[in-house]
Each structure stands twice: as C-alpha cells, then as structure tokens.
C-alpha cells in the first residue's frame, strides 16, 4: 500500500475556463494511466440567484430564471412558470401549451446537435463538429424569427406565452423538418451509429451501469443511455405532451443492447432528434386557435399573486435532463418568499465522476462532454507529481492531443489538429 501511494498522481482539471457557464474542477487521481478516484469541486461561478430572487417580483424572477443557462433558456423559465401556476392555480390556455411544446422541442434539437458536435470534436472529428453546428443554424434562425433572439428568447409568461406562432413560422418549421430529415439525419446516423472508428472510440468508455445511474439519480440522456426509462414529459404528464405520444427513448430501439457508455448516450440523442421532429409536426397539426395568455396584462399577474399563499413545484425535461423549480408565496409579498432550482448537470456530474473510475485519462474529455456540461474544452490541467511535488500545466490542447492520439491508434487516417476552438455553452 505505502509503495503504491508514491506513484499516484493527482490531476485537477479546471476550474477556470471562459467557455463554461459552470466552471467545475475535477481532481483526478491517477495510477499510471488508470483513474482511481475523481473528486468534484463546484461553486466557481456562484451568482447567488436565490438571494437576488427574494428582492424581485414574480415577473422579474422569470427573466432571472432564463439567465441561469444560455442553451436551456426556454427550459428554466418554462419550469418556473409552471411552478408558479401550480402554486396559484392558474389555468394556461391550450394554444399556449402547444406553443410551449413547439419552442421546447426546437430548443432540444439545437442543444442535441450542439452536443453531438462537441463529442465529435473531442475525439478528433472536427468536420462533424462544423457540419453539425452548420445544421444547427437552421433551427437557431427559426427561434430568432419566433422570439427575436438566438438565445434568451423570453417566450414564457406566467399563465401562457408571450409570442404566437404564426402561419409563416409554421411553414418555416415544416421546411426545416423536411431539410433535417432529408439532409442532416442520414449523415448524423452514419457518423454516430455506423462509423467503426466512432464506435470503437465511444463504446465502453465512461460506462454508467443501470444500478449506479439509479443510485446517483442520473437524469436525461445520461439516465436513458443506461436503460432507465424515465422522462419527465412522460412521467409527469406534462402539459399536452401525453396527447403527442411522447415516450422515453432508449438505445435498445436502435442498437438492441444497453451498455450505458458514451456511445449509448449519443444514440439516445440521435433518437431524440427524430422524436422531437415528430412531436413538433403533431403539435403544429393539433394546435387549436385561441388566446395565448391567461392574463391580458402583466400587472394583473402580480396583483393576483400578491394574495396567493402556498407552494408549488414545476418539473420539465430540459435537453440535458430533469429541471425542477420550487416556489413559495407569502401573502402581501410582490415576489417569491423562496425560490429554489436544480439543473440536471448537478446529479449527472457526480454520476459521471463515479463512471470515470477505471477509465483512461484520454477518455476524460469525451466522457465529461457526453453528459453535456462541455468540460472537454478544459482550459488547463495541472499535473502534480505526488513523488516530487513538481507541477506541470497542460492546456486544453494537450488534453485534446491525448484524446486524438487514442483515436489515431484506431484509425490512422484522422487528420484532426488539436486546436482550441472555444466551444461555448455560455453565450451571454
């Protein structure tokens, strides 16, 4: 035991990186090439949102909730609005529920395309990154057309939505779905389901077995990749989702087996792209006419909620997993007495930290990228030699070099350059 300790190396990855919306530090202990322990340290970007929210009114918190994350910008204020509606007993018009479904699924498409590109980049497939992000532009344009912004489109209001989906949006969305089905999806499937190099690189890396996923409460594609048939849209009977036939997607429908590795998580994302397009088509088809807000004027919301008392929980399946918001109201207050939220990366981080034990250092970027917090663009790595106490600093490029070297051993034809491209989950 004592002799062994001298060869262990501790590697902190992180925490500071400009491209992460949530800087995290992974302290990885290595025994040779194998990882024997992973520790997570959070809080480098703590903004104290819960404390700020106590000083704001109900509608201002709606916009604060949107600023939690740039990519899930519809998910967070959607969930917050649902929590407030449950607390105060507000009934949302049916057309508004359909618009929420459509914008939410458009957001899921762009988030999954982004993550597929990021994972391809970490194993050296830069062309896939550029092409999938090019395809993503199409859905971003439509979100811009509907909401006025590429991100933070502020679509939600308590008791409805702020923007209607007009006839021209409907045509543009159907055109986009046609383009994706014909042009993008066959190529995405070719790369992520049938390419031998990608399969060899992603199979059996970062394995989270089903038992571990339940134990660590993994959420979203991370959980479904491990075979947990759990989807908040389906389990919670959320909004009008039960009318649209939503079901949890597991890799079993595509590959026949469930292993819970990075490959399976990617397969789930590909499957959810198909599912999202189907849901949008059905929603556009079934969407009734009518009003889109429960309150015609915004100040009526604060007037009503000032008298409300009670607590409510809102849950929603964001592209990365379950988002949960809690609000409590006291009579006579303009804003929430308590607001608490949790985003899906939090439990997934601890699940993937557990999954990394026993893997190689070269698999760290792809395993962490596969849960979608995008830590693959790690800025720097400090390698501390436990024996001599010497420190050497690895940059993101060095870590990517390791990963690409492993891909080259499988397929020597890869011509990727380990370049720092500054992949941004943070777009603020």
């Amino acid at each position, binding site marked *: 035991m004592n002799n062994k300790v001298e060869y262990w190396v501790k590697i902190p990855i992180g925490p500071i990186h400009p491209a992460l919306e949530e800087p995290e530090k992974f302290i990885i202990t290595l025994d040779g090439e194998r990882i024997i322990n992973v520790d997570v340290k959070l809080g480098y970007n703590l903004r104290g949102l819960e404390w700020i929210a106590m000083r704001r009114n109900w509608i201002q918190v709606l916009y604060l909730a949107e600023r939690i994350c740039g990519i899930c910008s519809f998910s967070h204020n959607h969930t917050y609005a649902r929590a407030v509606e449950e607390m105060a007993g507000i009934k949302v018009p049916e057309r508004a529920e359909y618009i929420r479904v459509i914008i939410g699924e458009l957001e899921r498409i762009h988030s999954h395309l982004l993550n597929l590109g990021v994972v391809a980049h970490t194993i050296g497939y830069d062309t896939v990154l550029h092409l999938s992000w090019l395809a993503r532009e199409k859905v971003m344009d439509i979100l811009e057309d509907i909401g006025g912004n590429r991100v933070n489109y502020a679509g939600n209001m308590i008791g409805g939505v702020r923007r209607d989906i007009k006839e021209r949006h409907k045509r543009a969305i159907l055109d986009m779905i046609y383009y994706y089905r014909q042009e993008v999806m066959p190529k995405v499937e070719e790369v992520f389901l049938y390419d031998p190099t990608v399969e060899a690189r992603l199979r059996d890396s970062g394995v989270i077995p089903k038992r571990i996923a339940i134990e660590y409460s993994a959420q979203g594609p991370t959980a479904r990749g491990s075979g947990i048939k759990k989807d908040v849209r389906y389990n919670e009977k959320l909004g009008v989702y039960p009318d649209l036939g939503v079901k949890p997607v597991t890799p079993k429908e595509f590959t026949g087996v469930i292993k819970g590795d990075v490959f399976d998580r990617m397969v789930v994302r590909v499957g959810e792209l198909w599912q999202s397009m189907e849901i949008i088509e059905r929603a556009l088809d079934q969407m009734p006419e009518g009003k889109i807000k429960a309150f015609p004027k915004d100040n009526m919301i604060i007037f009503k909620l000032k008298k409300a008392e009670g607590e409510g929980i809102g*849950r929603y399946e964001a592209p990365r997993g379950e988002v949960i918001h809690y609000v409590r109201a006291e009579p006579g207050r303009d804003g929430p007495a308590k607001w608490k939220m949790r985003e899906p990366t939090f439990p997934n981080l601890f699940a993937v930290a557990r999954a990394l034990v026993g893997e190689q250092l070269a698999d760290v970027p792809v395993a962490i990228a596969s849960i979608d917090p995008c830590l693959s663009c790690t800025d720097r790595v400090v390698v501390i030699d436990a024996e001599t106490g010497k420190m050497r600093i690895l940059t993101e490029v060095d870590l990517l070099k390791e990963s690409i070297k492993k891909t080259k051993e499988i397929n020597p034809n890869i011509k990727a350059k380990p370049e720092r491209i500054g992949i941004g989950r943070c777009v603020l």
Partner: protein
Amino acid sequence: MTPEEFAERIKAKFEDAEIKITENKLPHPRRRIWIEVSREKFKDLVKVLKEIDPTAQFSIIIAEDRGDKLTAKYHWEMFWEQGESLSVVVGTSCPKDDPVLPTISDIFPSTLPYEREIQEFLGIKYEGIPDPRRLFLPDDFPEGIYPLRLDETGITPEMVKNAGHPYRVWKEKKGVKK
C-alpha cells in the same frame, strides 16, 4: 399505486405525519403528495420509501430559513417504470438553536452533494454525514457564516484574510502599503 393508497400506507405507519395531496390545473391533472414529519421519525419514513420502491429517484432538497426553525423538503419520484410516476415531497424541520438533521445519504447516496450544499449555506448539521467538506463555498470562507439565513449580517472586515494571492503575499513580504 395511486396517491391515496400511498398516503394510507404512510399514515398506517406514521400517525403523526401530516399528509396532503394537491392537484394542479394543467390539461392533464397531476397530483403531488406533501408529507410533513418530525425529524425523529424522518429517517424511518425514508427507509419505508426505499422499501416501497427501491428504484425511487431522489431529485432535490429545498431548505429554507423560516424564522425560528430551519425546514428541509425532499422530493422523490417513485414508480417511474410504470408510466405516470408518483411525486412525493417529504418535509421536516429543526429548531434554529439546535440545527441537526439525520443524514440519509446511507439510504439514498445521491443526497450527499445536496446535504453538503445545505450544510454550508444554511448551517444544518447532518448527523453522520460521510463527507462534510464544502462544495460550493471557498475553503477560506469564515466559519459560522451561513449565506442563506435570513438574519445573516454578512462578512465583517475583520474576517477578511489574505486568501493567498501571490501579489498580496509579495506586498506583505516587501511591506508595500496600498
């Protein structure tokens, strides 16, 4: 299992637990179970939850400062394999001058990071927590200050110490003023 059946099953074992079932006004009605229990009975109730559904998914701890007491609400999603799941919120509380709650990270291991978070933000001491280190706050944050308590006064200037910044260390060594 319907929410009523579940509530009866809990009520049979824990007589002093307050149980209420709420329903929201979505197009598809959705019911949620809110249970309130004393901190002595809390751990036993969590054990019963695990017995009823071993695959129950833990979601969040909502901890709050309510004046003279600190409350914590735990959310579970149960029976998610069977389609519509059961959403259960179990709440407990402790007085502010004796802020101790039992840890449940031995029953549901995924609660550990949330317990660590609440321990540093609200000062609830978790009895028997296997890993009491800080998660979010920096390691040199003063002891005994809990940022989310409502009567918190903040950090006084005397508590601010040199955080080990190289420039400050250099200045102190050289005796440079300002």
